[in-house]
């Protein structure tokens, strides 16, 4: 195992000054981004408005997922469960109880959150590969139930859900989604930069040390798991009316791979990484399937290149280009200084033992 790089040139820089500079730039960047997201769709063709809607929803899905992978160091391979449950909540309320999309979408995070709590209770007792597999197994179980329960979920036919008339037009649904996604992303940003977020980062860096300073590791991991589930539920709840259908494939394990790919392509060590990854994922996948017969090949090649040569993802690569090898402010390690291999490792035995023994101390 190689050592995390310690001679970080970024640290030499006057921290206060660069911090201030970064803060201003960052705020400007976010504002510019929001302005573009608000204004540009006014001049876009309808097809691109839909595509951009798709992007903002997937961005929320990826950012919520990264609360686990990037922030807490937990690789969930069953995140589609909460996305799909959100989608089906909205679709079921519309189909079975004639509840419109707008109030229904408020229940999507609730259902997804409750499921995440129930499943998370079991999952956070495990780490690494075992954690990933248990999340996957639970997600596949939920998929099976949805797929098989024809009378309730419509089985593989999916379940229709129509947005109300005032949201039917592409742009209206876009702005509706945009507002919700902005609110949720801002909340996620607050979570990440709160003391709670710092505690999660501490767990990622070294669970043993985190427990030693008094963090209830499992409880914090469970909370992160539930938050990630809640916001994925919102994303799913927005996706179903956009597609005017909830499909079982929204719960399938390949859908769980999507946020992993998006987050890693964009960069898991920064808050913006998954957003960038979602943009690449949505726009590129669409462009590639428009012109090329082998979309999986193109996408596989892209991911391969990113993983091999740009370990910090696109954001990390940009950072490197700017010569800024520094530690992120919100507890995200910079790209070059990857998470402590001892912390985010997939070797389960030690970590479980640690978590277990420390839980006993509290």
């Amino acid at each position, binding site marked *: 195992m190689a050592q995390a790089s310690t001679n970080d040139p970024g640290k030499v820089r006057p921290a206060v000054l660069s911090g201030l500079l970064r803060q201003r730039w960052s705020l400007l960047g976010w504002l510019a981004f929001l302005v573009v997201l608000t204004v540009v769709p006014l001049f876009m063709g309808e097809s691109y408005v839909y595509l951009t809607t798709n992007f903002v929803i997937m961005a929320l899905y990826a950012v919520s997922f990264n609360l686990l992978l990037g922030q807490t*160091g937990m690789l969930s391979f069953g995140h589609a469960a909460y996305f799909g449950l959100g989608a089906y909540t909205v679709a079921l309320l519309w189909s079975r109880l004639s509840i419109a999309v707008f109030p229904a979408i408020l229940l999507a995070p609730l259902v997804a959150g409750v499921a995440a709590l129930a499943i998370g209770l079991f999952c956070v007792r495990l780490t690494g590969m075992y954690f990933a597999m248990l999340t996957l197994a639970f997600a596949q179980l939920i998929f099976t139930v949805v797929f098989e329960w024809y009378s309730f979920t419509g089985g593989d036919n999916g379940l229709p859900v129509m947005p109300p008339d005032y949201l039917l037009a592409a742009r209206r649904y876009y702005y509706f989604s945009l507002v919700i996604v902005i609110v949720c992303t801002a909340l996620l940003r607050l979570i990440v930069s709160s003391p709670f977020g710092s505690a999660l980062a501490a767990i990622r860096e070294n669970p043993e040390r985190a427990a030693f300073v008094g963090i209830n590791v499992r409880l914090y991991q469970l909370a992160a798991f539930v938050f990630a589930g809640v916001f994925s539920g919102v994303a799913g709840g927005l996706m179903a009316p956009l597609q005017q259908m909830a499909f079982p494939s929204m719960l399938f394990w390949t859908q769980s791979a999507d946020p992993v790919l998006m987050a890693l392509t964009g960069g898991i060590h920064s808050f913006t990484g998954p957003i960038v990854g979602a943009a690449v994922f949505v726009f590129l996948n669409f462009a590639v399937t428009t012109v090329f017969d082998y979309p999986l090949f193109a996408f596989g090649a892209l991911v391969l290149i990113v993983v091999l040569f740009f370990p910090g993802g696109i954001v990390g690569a940009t950072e490197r280009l700017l010569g800024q090898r520094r530690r992120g402010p919100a507890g995200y390690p910079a790209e070059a200084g990857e998470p402590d291999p001892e912390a985010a490792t997939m070797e389960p035995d030690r970590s479980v033992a640690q978590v277990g023994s420390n839980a006993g101390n509290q």
Partner: protein
Amino acid sequence: MLTDILVQVMSGLSRGMVLFIVASGLTLIFGVLRVINFAHGSLYMLAAYLTHSIAMLVGSNDLSFYLALLIAPVAVALLGVVIEVTMMRRISHRPHQYQLILTFALTLLIADGVKMVWGGDYYTVARPSFLEGSFTVFGQPFPSYYGMLIIVGFVIAGGLLWMLTRTRLGKVLDAAVSDGEMVSALGINVPALYTAVFAFGVWLAGLGGVLAAPVGSVSLGMDNSIIIESFAVVIIGGVGNVIGALLGAIIIGVMQSVGIMVAPKMAIAFIFVVLCAVLILRPRGLMGVKA
């Protein structure tokens, strides 16, 4: 009724054996390299397609099947060497999710690569003539080919166990599974060992692919259906544990075969129920040792 169940158990065994051969490669790779090889199923599929191509080249007969048994697993193992040396090694120092994503990207590349070379069509591969029919067991017919699969599965299991417990190589591997750093302290060329283990694991996937080709059809999507089941077997058995993989594969195979008789609607969920139960009750897997 009892004989029905016994025959069903045997057919479950034959199914479990292909699963075991594939999963044993996966568990070895994970045990030694700590790499979750998502591409394992893709290499299995690739070997199945190669089996079809070899049959096309030399004419579909017994010889083509034996040739495929020799060539296809070695061919995918070589590809495995390339993957390990040029890609895995580059990122071996990074958190393991990178390797997972790398191998996942490879599944996408191989899936479309197979489509480029062989088209989207599905194919069949003939069974060797002496295994085409069936023999009688408990008064019921049982396909000879499945009988062969059961025998081959146990032979491979025996061979692997012998290698792991009785040879020096096995002791090195065993040490590597429990503590990677100790092996390098022993003065063993760890990178070469990793490459060899990866290639051998992939060879097993290829062997599984060749053996599975004549059972059903050779088609796109073979990769997805085997990889999740193989993961389940690895986890149920205990990571890095070959006997565990054998046990897990037999449990999955037999449960699915017998389960269909008992509760057909639930069959699709069995594997995940078992996986959840094992992970909750015995997170190290059935044969896993507690840390």
